[in-house]
């Protein structure tokens, strides 16, 4: 069941973000030019401190670029984007259902419609039975599922994901990756997925953007040749996957070393 709708298109050009700190200015990202196709699953990898989260936060409207422009075309979608945060960011004082409904309440969606959509979103991530639970009563995997439901329910043209599965154990991570890919295949949304894991990027994405160490620039963009729908477990065991992973690691290794030298200096 492939969706006919295509997600948001994004055009980023000449994006730069600098911060003032005690000694002067720190450039987090610079010269970022990037086009994201409607419905694309784009992964961004890079060493820590490469500004990949900064890029995501600017796209999410939580930060502003110092210069450059971002154009998002998300006509036909209820909202432009919704973000899934690294440690879920579920409000501890709301139960699962209320958390998931939050983005509908803020946008004035009428209660009966909101409830129906929450119901559907909870079913989508398999949390129907846990609607009355508070976040502290859930496992890490269930919390991230709730956060994904909270993002999906608002019907965004684009999902922004900031290492959403980084804190999960290996088994849960594989399960959630497969679920996310399935949801993406069904809904046609654009996904921009920040991760530090090459493997994760290759498993899920259509393209992988490799960023340089500080200041963050785009070093290389790699087309991931595996067709969808994907069987993530089989894919991860294939020889071609291993080769591609090694290629990317070689590109990334340089940057990781450079980032390390930067810190030790």
């Amino acid at each position, binding site marked *: 069941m492939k969706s006919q709708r295509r997600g948001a298109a994004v055009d980023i050009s000449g994006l730069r973000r600098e911060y003032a700190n005690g000694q002067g200015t720190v450039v987090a990202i610079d010269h970022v030019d990037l086009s994201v196709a409607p419905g694309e699953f784009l992964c961004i990898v890079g060493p820590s401190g490469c500004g990949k989260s900064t890029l995501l936060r600017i796209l999410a409207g939580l930060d502003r670029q110092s210069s450059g422009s971002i154009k998002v075309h998300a006509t036909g979608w209820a909202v432009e*984007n*919704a973000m899934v945060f690294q440690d879920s*960011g579920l409000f501890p004082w709301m139960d699962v259902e209320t958390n998931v409904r939050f983005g509908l*309440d803020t946008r004035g969606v009428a209660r009966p419609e909101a409830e129906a959509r929450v119901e559907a979103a909870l079913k989508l991530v398999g949390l129907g039975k846990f609607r009355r639970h508070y976040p502290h009563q859930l496992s890490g995997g269930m919390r991230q599922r709730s956060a994904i439901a909270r993002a999906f329910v608002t019907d965004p043209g684009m999902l922004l994901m900031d290492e959403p599965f980084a804190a999960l154990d290996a088994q849960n991570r594989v399960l959630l990756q497969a679920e996310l890919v399935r949801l993406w295949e069904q809904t046609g949304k654009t996904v921009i997925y920040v991760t530090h894991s090459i493997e994760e990027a290759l498993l899920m994405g259509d393209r992988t953007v490799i960023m340089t160490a500080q200041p963050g620039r785009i070093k290389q963009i790699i087309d991931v040749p595996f067709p969808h729908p994907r069987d993530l477990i089989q894919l991860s065991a294939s020889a071609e996957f291993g080769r591609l992973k090694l290629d990317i690691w070689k590109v990334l290794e340089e940057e990781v070393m450079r980032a390390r030298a930067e810190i030790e200096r």
Partner: protein
Amino acid sequence: MSGVTGKTKERLLYLASPIGLLVLWQLLLMAGLGDRRFIPTPSDIAARYWQMVASGELAQHTGVTLYRVFAGFFIGSIPGIAVGLLMAMFRPVRIVVDPLIAALFPIPKIALMPLLLLAFGFGDASKIALVAIAVFFPVIINTYSGAANIEKIYWDVARNFGASQQVMFRRIVFFGALPMIFAGLRIALAVSFIVLVAAEFVATKAGIGYLIWNSWELLQVDVMFVGIVTVGILGLIATVALQEIERKVIPWKAE
């Protein structure tokens, strides 16, 4: 099973230390240590307590004191919560309010009593006003620090999901600060008994504070103790009630 017995055990342990202290007190006086005219035994106090309960005298004073405490507590804490939240949300509010708190908080609130008598007269209003003022400060400070220390991620989530200022206030800042608000209310509750009993020493003919001061003037030491014990009991009951409310209102707080 172990959960229930564990809880019961905790409750018993909770009572053990005050009861132990009373038993020790009784035994020492019965053994002849100290003068029972000036230091009554717990059993003397209990007898007097019972007599004052039976005559209705204690209930009357308690009623007056409770009315003043709760009126002052609500009048002081509700604006304390509101201003504390506004301080956390809006920097200008914080800049205006901060120096006022810094200057007014350290003033012993009982020192305001003469002023309040001038303003509100000798009735209940002046005592209620004093309690309200005393309660305001711990509540505002706790509310503010609770709201200001809400994790950044919750602000980010709220903004990303399109929350207006009003939604931020009602659904994020208020609830995020709620555990600290309750911590402030608990301090405020104790403070309100402290200042009120002191205020009732002067310029009133009713209330537990009056009872204590009057018994000093008549040298009825046992009545004095009845008053002191009553304040302790009232404080204990009020605090336990507040904790029960907290448990109901903050179901997300991990046990």
